[in-house]
Protein backbone atom coordinates (compact mmCIF):
# COMPACT_ATOMS: atom_id res chain seq x y z
CA UNK A 1 0.00 0.00 0.00
CA UNK A 2 1.13 3.50 -0.78
CA UNK A 3 0.65 6.07 1.94
CA UNK A 4 -0.43 9.51 0.77
CA UNK A 5 -0.62 12.62 2.94
CA UNK A 6 -3.27 15.13 1.84
CA UNK A 7 -3.45 18.86 2.60
CA UNK A 8 -6.26 19.93 4.91
CA UNK A 9 -8.58 21.24 2.21
CA UNK A 10 -8.43 18.01 0.25
CA UNK A 11 -9.04 15.98 3.40
CA UNK A 12 -12.28 17.93 3.83
CA UNK A 13 -13.23 17.49 0.22
CA UNK A 14 -12.59 13.74 0.20
CA UNK A 15 -14.00 13.23 3.69
CA UNK A 16 -10.84 11.53 4.94
CA UNK A 17 -8.05 12.10 7.41
CA UNK A 18 -4.53 13.31 6.78
CA UNK A 19 -3.20 9.94 5.67
CA UNK A 20 -4.87 7.73 3.07
CA UNK A 21 -3.75 4.45 1.59
CA UNK A 22 -3.98 3.54 -2.08
CA UNK A 23 -3.08 0.37 -3.91
CA UNK A 24 -1.07 0.66 -7.11
CA UNK A 25 -0.54 -2.16 -9.54
CA UNK A 26 2.55 -1.87 -11.68
CA UNK A 27 5.23 0.82 -11.43
CA UNK A 28 4.78 3.29 -8.60
CA UNK A 29 4.96 6.71 -10.20
CA UNK A 30 3.33 10.07 -9.62
CA UNK A 31 0.87 9.20 -12.36
CA UNK A 32 -0.10 5.81 -10.96
CA UNK A 33 -0.40 7.10 -7.39
CA UNK A 34 -2.53 10.07 -8.44
CA UNK A 35 -4.62 7.83 -10.70
CA UNK A 36 -5.28 5.50 -7.78
CA UNK A 37 -6.06 8.41 -5.50
CA UNK A 38 -8.57 9.92 -7.94
CA UNK A 39 -10.17 6.52 -8.51
CA UNK A 40 -10.56 5.93 -4.79
CA UNK A 41 -11.69 9.46 -4.05
CA UNK A 42 -13.45 10.88 -7.14
CA UNK A 43 -14.07 14.22 -5.38
CA UNK A 44 -10.36 14.88 -5.79
CA UNK A 45 -10.48 14.65 -9.58
CA UNK A 46 -9.02 17.81 -11.06
CA UNK A 47 -7.93 19.29 -7.74
CA UNK A 48 -4.27 18.22 -7.75
CA UNK A 49 -3.66 18.21 -11.49
CA UNK A 50 -5.61 19.14 -14.56
CA UNK A 51 -8.06 16.33 -15.26
CA UNK A 52 -7.29 16.31 -18.98
CA UNK A 53 -3.66 17.34 -19.42
CA UNK A 54 -2.61 15.77 -16.08
CA UNK A 55 -0.41 18.82 -15.53
CA UNK A 56 0.23 19.56 -11.86
CA UNK A 57 -1.64 22.58 -10.55
CA UNK A 58 0.87 25.39 -10.10
CA UNK A 59 0.28 25.75 -6.37
CA UNK A 60 0.45 22.05 -5.56
CA UNK A 61 3.75 20.38 -4.69
CA UNK A 62 4.69 16.70 -4.39
CA UNK A 63 7.29 15.71 -1.78
CA UNK A 64 8.72 12.39 -0.65
CA UNK A 65 11.78 11.32 1.31
CA UNK A 66 12.75 14.95 1.92
CA UNK A 67 12.87 15.63 -1.82
CA UNK A 68 10.73 17.94 -3.93
CA UNK A 69 9.48 15.72 -6.77
CA UNK A 70 7.04 18.27 -8.18
CA UNK A 71 8.88 18.79 -11.42
CA UNK A 72 9.87 15.18 -11.98
CA UNK A 73 8.32 13.29 -14.87
CA UNK A 74 4.86 11.94 -14.12
CA UNK A 75 6.17 8.53 -15.12
CA UNK A 76 9.41 8.56 -13.14
CA UNK A 77 9.55 5.89 -10.46
CA UNK A 78 8.93 7.19 -6.96
CA UNK A 79 11.53 6.28 -4.30
CA UNK A 80 11.53 2.67 -3.09
CA UNK A 81 10.56 3.85 0.40
CA UNK A 82 7.31 5.24 -1.05
CA UNK A 83 6.67 2.16 -3.15
CA UNK A 84 7.17 -0.10 -0.12
CA UNK A 85 4.92 2.02 2.09
CA UNK A 86 7.74 2.99 4.46
CA UNK A 87 7.56 6.68 3.57
CA UNK A 88 4.48 8.67 2.50
CA UNK A 89 3.95 10.58 -0.71
CA UNK A 90 3.12 14.10 0.40
CA UNK A 91 0.75 16.37 -1.48
CA UNK A 92 1.30 19.94 -0.34
CA UNK A 93 -0.58 23.16 -0.99
CA UNK A 94 1.89 26.00 -1.56
CA UNK A 95 2.02 28.34 1.40
CA UNK A 96 0.51 31.78 1.20
CA UNK A 97 0.01 34.38 3.86
CA UNK A 98 -0.15 38.02 4.66
Amino acid at each position, binding site marked *: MIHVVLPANLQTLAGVGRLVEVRVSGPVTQRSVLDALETGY*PALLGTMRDAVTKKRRPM*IRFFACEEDLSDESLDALLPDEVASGKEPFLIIGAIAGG
Partner: protein
Amino acid sequence: MSEIRVLVGTRKGAFVLSSDASRKTWKVEGPHFAGWEIFHVKGSPAAPERLYASQSSSWFGQVLHRSNDAGKTWETVGNQFLYDGTPGTHKWYDGSPHPWEFKRVWHLEPSLDDPDKLYAGVEDAALFESADGGSTWTELPALREHKTASEWAPGAGGMCLHTIVIDPSNKDRLFVAISSAGTFRSDDAGKSWRPINRGLRSNYIPDQDAEVGHCVHRIAMHPSRPNVLFMQKHWDVMRSDDGGESWREISGNLPTDFGFVIDVNANEPDTVYVVPITSDSLHYVPDGKLRVYRSRTGGDDWEALTKGLPQRDCYVNVLRDAMAVDGLDPCGVYFGTSGGQVYASPDGGDSWTAIVRDLPAVLSVEAQTIP
Protein backbone atom coordinates in the same frame (compact mmCIF):
# COMPACT_ATOMS: atom_id res chain seq x y z
CA MET B 1 -46.07 30.25 6.38
CA SER B 2 -43.32 30.97 3.90
CA GLU B 3 -39.68 30.51 4.71
CA ILE B 4 -36.83 32.57 3.34
CA ARG B 5 -33.38 31.13 2.72
CA VAL B 6 -30.45 33.36 1.92
CA LEU B 7 -27.53 31.53 0.34
CA VAL B 8 -24.20 33.23 0.90
CA GLY B 9 -20.90 32.47 -0.83
CA THR B 10 -17.78 33.85 0.85
CA ARG B 11 -14.02 33.75 0.57
CA LYS B 12 -13.91 31.00 3.18
CA GLY B 13 -17.05 28.94 2.82
CA ALA B 14 -20.80 29.05 2.25
CA PHE B 15 -23.55 29.92 4.70
CA VAL B 16 -27.28 29.30 4.69
CA LEU B 17 -29.35 31.91 6.53
CA SER B 18 -33.01 31.11 7.13
CA SER B 19 -36.03 32.85 8.61
CA ASP B 20 -39.78 32.75 8.58
CA ALA B 21 -41.72 35.31 6.58
CA SER B 22 -41.32 37.95 9.27
CA ARG B 23 -37.61 38.00 8.40
CA LYS B 24 -36.73 39.20 11.88
CA THR B 25 -35.00 36.21 13.44
CA TRP B 26 -32.44 34.30 11.47
CA LYS B 27 -30.78 30.94 11.82
CA VAL B 28 -27.22 30.79 10.51
CA GLU B 29 -25.81 27.50 9.22
CA GLY B 30 -22.24 27.08 8.06
CA PRO B 31 -19.56 27.35 7.10
CA HIS B 32 -20.10 24.72 4.47
CA PHE B 33 -16.86 23.91 2.59
CA ALA B 34 -14.91 25.66 5.33
CA GLY B 35 -11.82 27.39 4.08
CA TRP B 36 -12.81 27.27 0.42
CA GLU B 37 -13.69 30.17 -1.79
CA ILE B 38 -17.35 29.81 -2.77
CA PHE B 39 -18.12 32.01 -5.74
CA HIS B 40 -21.82 31.27 -5.97
CA VAL B 41 -24.60 29.21 -4.38
CA LYS B 42 -27.99 29.07 -6.00
CA GLY B 43 -31.14 27.01 -5.58
CA SER B 44 -33.42 25.52 -8.20
CA PRO B 45 -36.67 27.47 -8.62
CA ALA B 46 -38.33 24.17 -9.54
CA ALA B 47 -37.11 22.28 -6.46
CA PRO B 48 -35.90 24.65 -3.77
CA GLU B 49 -34.18 21.96 -1.72
CA ARG B 50 -31.81 21.42 -4.65
CA LEU B 51 -28.83 23.75 -4.31
CA TYR B 52 -25.70 24.11 -6.38
CA ALA B 53 -22.42 25.62 -5.20
CA SER B 54 -19.35 26.68 -7.13
CA GLN B 55 -16.12 26.28 -5.20
CA SER B 56 -12.94 27.64 -6.71
CA SER B 57 -9.42 28.10 -5.49
CA SER B 58 -6.07 29.02 -6.91
CA TRP B 59 -4.65 25.89 -5.31
CA PHE B 60 -7.15 23.18 -6.12
CA GLY B 61 -9.12 24.47 -9.09
CA GLN B 62 -12.84 24.13 -9.67
CA VAL B 63 -15.15 21.92 -7.62
CA LEU B 64 -18.93 21.85 -7.89
CA HIS B 65 -21.32 20.67 -5.19
CA ARG B 66 -24.97 19.73 -5.18
CA SER B 67 -27.36 19.39 -2.28
CA ASN B 68 -30.79 17.76 -2.26
CA ASP B 69 -31.70 18.88 1.25
CA ALA B 70 -31.20 22.64 1.23
CA GLY B 71 -27.56 22.44 2.20
CA LYS B 72 -27.68 19.97 5.05
CA THR B 73 -25.60 17.52 3.04
CA TRP B 74 -23.62 17.97 -0.17
CA GLU B 75 -22.09 15.80 -2.86
CA THR B 76 -19.44 16.73 -5.38
CA VAL B 77 -20.55 16.69 -9.00
CA GLY B 78 -18.78 17.27 -12.30
CA ASN B 79 -15.95 19.75 -12.60
CA GLN B 80 -14.92 19.08 -16.20
CA PHE B 81 -15.48 22.23 -18.23
CA LEU B 82 -13.96 21.53 -21.61
CA TYR B 83 -14.33 24.09 -24.36
CA ASP B 84 -15.89 22.68 -27.47
CA GLY B 85 -13.30 21.88 -30.14
CA THR B 86 -10.07 23.81 -30.20
CA PRO B 87 -10.66 27.12 -28.47
CA GLY B 88 -9.29 30.14 -30.23
CA THR B 89 -7.76 33.21 -28.68
CA HIS B 90 -8.95 36.41 -27.08
CA LYS B 91 -6.96 39.52 -26.36
CA TRP B 92 -4.63 39.49 -23.39
CA TYR B 93 -3.85 42.53 -21.22
CA ASP B 94 -1.00 43.55 -23.52
CA GLY B 95 -3.15 43.17 -26.62
CA SER B 96 -1.58 39.91 -27.71
CA PRO B 97 -3.70 36.87 -28.61
CA HIS B 98 -4.22 34.57 -25.62
CA PRO B 99 -5.72 31.08 -25.73
CA TRP B 100 -9.01 30.51 -23.95
CA GLU B 101 -8.28 28.81 -20.60
CA PHE B 102 -10.89 27.61 -18.13
CA LYS B 103 -10.32 29.08 -14.68
CA ARG B 104 -13.52 28.95 -12.64
CA VAL B 105 -17.30 29.02 -12.53
CA TRP B 106 -18.51 32.45 -11.53
CA HIS B 107 -22.24 31.96 -11.73
CA LEU B 108 -24.72 29.08 -11.73
CA GLU B 109 -28.20 29.62 -13.12
CA PRO B 110 -30.62 26.72 -12.59
CA SER B 111 -33.45 26.21 -15.05
CA LEU B 112 -36.78 27.69 -14.07
CA ASP B 113 -38.61 24.36 -14.34
CA ASP B 114 -36.11 21.49 -14.31
CA PRO B 115 -34.00 20.93 -11.18
CA ASP B 116 -31.44 18.88 -13.10
CA LYS B 117 -30.82 21.53 -15.74
CA LEU B 118 -28.60 24.52 -15.17
CA TYR B 119 -26.21 26.90 -16.84
CA ALA B 120 -22.73 27.85 -15.69
CA GLY B 121 -20.97 31.08 -16.59
CA VAL B 122 -17.23 30.63 -16.52
CA GLU B 123 -13.88 32.40 -16.84
CA ASP B 124 -12.46 32.56 -19.53
CA ALA B 125 -15.85 33.65 -20.73
CA ALA B 126 -18.11 30.89 -21.96
CA LEU B 127 -21.48 29.37 -21.20
CA PHE B 128 -21.92 25.72 -20.25
CA GLU B 129 -25.05 23.70 -19.59
CA SER B 130 -25.79 20.54 -17.69
CA ALA B 131 -28.90 18.38 -18.02
CA ASP B 132 -27.99 15.88 -15.30
CA GLY B 133 -27.74 17.94 -12.16
CA GLY B 134 -24.22 19.16 -12.78
CA SER B 135 -22.65 15.74 -13.28
CA THR B 136 -21.56 16.53 -16.84
CA TRP B 137 -21.16 19.82 -18.67
CA THR B 138 -21.34 20.80 -22.32
CA GLU B 139 -20.35 24.14 -23.73
CA LEU B 140 -22.78 26.20 -25.79
CA PRO B 141 -19.92 27.23 -28.07
CA ALA B 142 -21.63 29.78 -30.30
CA LEU B 143 -21.05 32.51 -27.74
CA ARG B 144 -17.29 31.94 -27.48
CA GLU B 145 -17.15 31.51 -31.24
CA HIS B 146 -18.89 34.83 -31.91
CA LYS B 147 -17.06 36.84 -34.57
CA THR B 148 -16.12 39.49 -32.01
CA ALA B 149 -14.69 37.06 -29.44
CA SER B 150 -11.10 37.33 -30.57
CA GLU B 151 -11.31 41.02 -29.59
CA TRP B 152 -12.66 40.40 -26.09
CA ALA B 153 -10.20 41.24 -23.33
CA PRO B 154 -10.26 40.64 -19.59
CA GLY B 155 -10.73 43.35 -17.03
CA ALA B 156 -8.75 43.28 -13.79
CA GLY B 157 -11.07 40.63 -12.38
CA GLY B 158 -10.62 38.29 -15.31
CA MET B 159 -12.68 37.65 -18.43
CA CYS B 160 -15.68 36.15 -16.72
CA LEU B 161 -19.23 35.38 -17.74
CA HIS B 162 -20.87 36.43 -14.50
CA THR B 163 -24.54 37.06 -15.30
CA ILE B 164 -27.10 34.71 -16.83
CA VAL B 165 -30.74 35.80 -17.10
CA ILE B 166 -33.43 33.48 -18.45
CA ASP B 167 -36.55 35.07 -19.92
CA PRO B 168 -39.37 33.36 -17.99
CA SER B 169 -41.82 33.95 -20.84
CA ASN B 170 -39.52 32.44 -23.45
CA LYS B 171 -36.94 29.97 -22.20
CA ASP B 172 -35.09 30.12 -25.51
CA ARG B 173 -34.18 33.72 -24.78
CA LEU B 174 -31.06 34.09 -22.67
CA PHE B 175 -29.11 37.15 -21.66
CA VAL B 176 -25.51 36.96 -20.47
CA ALA B 177 -22.98 39.56 -19.43
CA ILE B 178 -19.23 39.30 -19.71
CA SER B 179 -16.48 41.42 -18.19
CA SER B 180 -15.25 43.09 -20.22
CA ALA B 181 -17.00 42.22 -23.46
CA GLY B 182 -20.56 43.35 -22.75
CA THR B 183 -24.03 41.92 -22.93
CA PHE B 184 -25.21 39.25 -25.37
CA ARG B 185 -28.59 37.77 -26.19
CA SER B 186 -29.64 34.45 -27.61
CA ASP B 187 -33.14 33.82 -28.94
CA ASP B 188 -32.55 30.15 -29.67
CA ALA B 189 -31.43 28.68 -26.34
CA GLY B 190 -27.79 29.48 -26.90
CA LYS B 191 -27.35 28.24 -30.47
CA SER B 192 -26.52 31.75 -31.65
CA TRP B 193 -25.75 35.05 -29.97
CA ARG B 194 -25.47 38.69 -30.75
CA PRO B 195 -24.08 41.61 -28.78
CA ILE B 196 -26.73 43.96 -27.37
CA ASN B 197 -24.70 46.97 -26.29
CA ARG B 198 -26.15 49.83 -28.34
CA GLY B 199 -26.31 52.94 -26.20
CA LEU B 200 -23.46 51.97 -23.88
CA ARG B 201 -20.53 54.39 -23.75
CA SER B 202 -17.27 53.46 -22.05
CA ASN B 203 -14.33 55.82 -21.88
CA TYR B 204 -11.85 53.03 -21.16
CA ILE B 205 -12.06 51.65 -24.71
CA PRO B 206 -10.78 53.45 -27.79
CA ASP B 207 -14.15 53.46 -29.56
CA GLN B 208 -16.42 54.50 -26.72
CA ASP B 209 -19.62 53.14 -28.24
CA ALA B 210 -18.12 50.02 -29.78
CA GLU B 211 -20.20 46.92 -30.39
CA VAL B 212 -18.25 45.02 -27.69
CA GLY B 213 -15.68 45.82 -25.02
CA HIS B 214 -17.95 47.28 -22.35
CA CYS B 215 -17.44 46.17 -18.78
CA VAL B 216 -20.96 45.25 -17.76
CA HIS B 217 -21.12 44.36 -14.08
CA ARG B 218 -24.65 43.05 -13.73
CA ILE B 219 -28.04 42.98 -15.44
CA ALA B 220 -31.42 42.41 -13.80
CA MET B 221 -34.95 41.77 -15.01
CA HIS B 222 -38.38 41.65 -13.40
CA PRO B 223 -40.01 38.36 -14.46
CA SER B 224 -43.28 40.06 -15.39
CA ARG B 225 -41.58 42.41 -17.83
CA PRO B 226 -38.80 40.53 -19.60
CA ASN B 227 -38.14 43.20 -22.21
CA VAL B 228 -37.09 45.69 -19.54
CA LEU B 229 -33.53 45.20 -18.39
CA PHE B 230 -31.52 47.16 -15.85
CA MET B 231 -27.74 47.27 -15.95
CA GLN B 232 -24.98 48.34 -13.60
CA LYS B 233 -22.03 48.96 -15.86
CA HIS B 234 -18.47 49.66 -14.71
CA TRP B 235 -19.61 53.25 -14.76
CA ASP B 236 -23.26 54.15 -15.56
CA VAL B 237 -26.57 52.62 -14.59
CA MET B 238 -28.53 51.77 -17.72
CA ARG B 239 -31.99 50.63 -18.79
CA SER B 240 -33.34 48.91 -21.88
CA ASP B 241 -37.03 48.72 -22.76
CA ASP B 242 -36.59 46.56 -25.83
CA GLY B 243 -34.86 43.41 -24.68
CA GLY B 244 -31.43 44.96 -24.90
CA GLU B 245 -31.72 46.34 -28.45
CA SER B 246 -30.89 49.77 -27.05
CA TRP B 247 -29.90 51.22 -23.70
CA ARG B 248 -30.26 54.62 -22.06
CA GLU B 249 -28.55 55.95 -18.98
CA ILE B 250 -30.66 56.22 -15.81
CA SER B 251 -27.92 57.20 -13.34
CA GLY B 252 -29.81 60.43 -12.56
CA ASN B 253 -28.99 61.80 -9.13
CA LEU B 254 -26.84 58.92 -7.86
CA PRO B 255 -23.78 60.14 -5.92
CA THR B 256 -21.63 57.97 -8.20
CA ASP B 257 -22.74 55.66 -10.96
CA PHE B 258 -19.95 53.16 -10.43
CA GLY B 259 -21.02 49.96 -8.72
CA PHE B 260 -21.54 46.26 -9.13
CA VAL B 261 -24.99 45.10 -8.03
CA ILE B 262 -28.42 45.93 -9.38
CA ASP B 263 -31.73 44.25 -8.62
CA VAL B 264 -35.47 44.74 -9.04
CA ASN B 265 -38.20 44.61 -6.40
CA ALA B 266 -40.23 41.40 -6.74
CA ASN B 267 -43.57 43.23 -6.60
CA GLU B 268 -42.81 46.56 -8.24
CA PRO B 269 -41.13 46.20 -11.65
CA ASP B 270 -40.04 49.83 -11.65
CA THR B 271 -38.43 49.72 -8.22
CA VAL B 272 -34.70 49.19 -8.66
CA TYR B 273 -31.82 48.95 -6.18
CA VAL B 274 -28.12 49.75 -6.57
CA VAL B 275 -25.23 50.26 -4.16
CA PRO B 276 -23.05 53.09 -5.48
CA ILE B 277 -19.31 52.55 -5.04
CA THR B 278 -16.95 55.52 -5.07
CA SER B 279 -14.96 54.62 -8.16
CA ASP B 280 -13.04 51.91 -9.96
CA SER B 281 -9.91 52.88 -8.07
CA LEU B 282 -11.66 53.19 -4.68
CA HIS B 283 -13.68 50.03 -4.36
CA TYR B 284 -15.63 51.18 -1.32
CA VAL B 285 -18.78 53.15 -0.65
CA PRO B 286 -18.63 56.98 -0.86
CA ASP B 287 -18.13 59.20 2.19
CA GLY B 288 -17.78 56.28 4.60
CA LYS B 289 -21.54 55.68 4.34
CA LEU B 290 -23.19 52.44 3.26
CA ARG B 291 -26.24 53.46 1.27
CA VAL B 292 -28.52 51.45 -0.95
CA TYR B 293 -30.19 53.65 -3.54
CA ARG B 294 -33.72 52.91 -4.66
CA SER B 295 -35.55 54.24 -7.65
CA ARG B 296 -39.31 53.80 -7.72
CA THR B 297 -39.52 55.24 -11.19
CA GLY B 298 -37.40 52.78 -13.10
CA GLY B 299 -34.32 54.96 -12.85
CA ASP B 300 -33.17 58.59 -13.01
CA ASP B 301 -34.69 59.53 -9.66
CA TRP B 302 -32.97 57.78 -6.74
CA GLU B 303 -33.36 57.96 -2.96
CA ALA B 304 -30.75 56.93 -0.40
CA LEU B 305 -31.81 54.14 1.97
CA THR B 306 -29.82 54.42 5.16
CA LYS B 307 -31.93 53.27 8.10
CA GLY B 308 -29.96 50.58 9.88
CA LEU B 309 -26.90 50.89 7.65
CA PRO B 310 -23.60 52.35 8.94
CA GLN B 311 -23.34 56.04 8.10
CA ARG B 312 -19.78 56.69 9.20
CA ASP B 313 -16.37 55.01 8.91
CA CYS B 314 -17.65 52.37 6.52
CA TYR B 315 -15.41 51.32 3.62
CA VAL B 316 -16.84 48.10 2.28
CA ASN B 317 -17.58 46.97 -1.26
CA VAL B 318 -20.57 45.00 -2.55
CA LEU B 319 -19.65 42.64 -5.37
CA ARG B 320 -21.71 41.92 -8.47
CA ASP B 321 -23.46 38.73 -7.35
CA ALA B 322 -23.99 39.89 -3.77
CA MET B 323 -27.54 41.30 -3.87
CA ALA B 324 -30.83 39.45 -4.11
CA VAL B 325 -34.54 39.90 -3.49
CA ASP B 326 -37.09 37.46 -2.13
CA GLY B 327 -40.62 36.93 -3.46
CA LEU B 328 -42.67 38.12 -0.50
CA ASP B 329 -44.74 41.27 -0.20
CA PRO B 330 -43.28 43.54 1.00
CA CYS B 331 -40.20 42.46 -0.87
CA GLY B 332 -37.13 41.45 1.11
CA VAL B 333 -33.82 42.79 -0.16
CA TYR B 334 -30.46 41.30 0.82
CA PHE B 335 -26.84 42.15 0.18
CA GLY B 336 -23.43 41.09 1.44
CA THR B 337 -20.27 43.11 1.79
CA SER B 338 -16.54 42.69 1.54
CA GLY B 339 -16.53 43.21 5.31
CA GLY B 340 -18.56 40.07 5.92
CA GLN B 341 -21.90 41.65 6.77
CA VAL B 342 -25.13 40.37 5.24
CA TYR B 343 -27.87 42.97 5.50
CA ALA B 344 -31.58 42.28 5.14
CA SER B 345 -34.48 44.60 4.59
CA PRO B 346 -37.93 43.05 5.08
CA ASP B 347 -39.68 46.18 3.86
CA GLY B 348 -38.40 46.84 0.38
CA GLY B 349 -35.37 48.79 1.56
CA ASP B 350 -36.96 51.15 4.07
CA SER B 351 -34.98 49.65 6.95
CA TRP B 352 -32.05 47.28 7.28
CA THR B 353 -30.56 44.97 9.85
CA ALA B 354 -27.44 42.84 9.70
CA ILE B 355 -28.29 39.13 9.76
CA VAL B 356 -24.60 38.48 10.38
CA ARG B 357 -21.75 40.92 10.76
CA ASP B 358 -18.53 38.96 10.74
CA LEU B 359 -18.50 36.43 7.95
CA PRO B 360 -15.56 36.19 5.57
CA ALA B 361 -15.78 38.62 2.63
CA VAL B 362 -19.04 37.97 0.81
CA LEU B 363 -18.89 37.01 -2.87
CA SER B 364 -22.52 36.16 -3.58
CA VAL B 365 -25.99 36.33 -2.09
CA GLU B 366 -29.12 34.59 -3.35
CA ALA B 367 -32.57 34.48 -1.79
CA GLN B 368 -35.07 31.63 -1.94
CA THR B 369 -38.75 31.97 -1.07
CA ILE B 370 -40.07 28.63 0.14
CA PRO B 371 -43.88 28.41 0.06
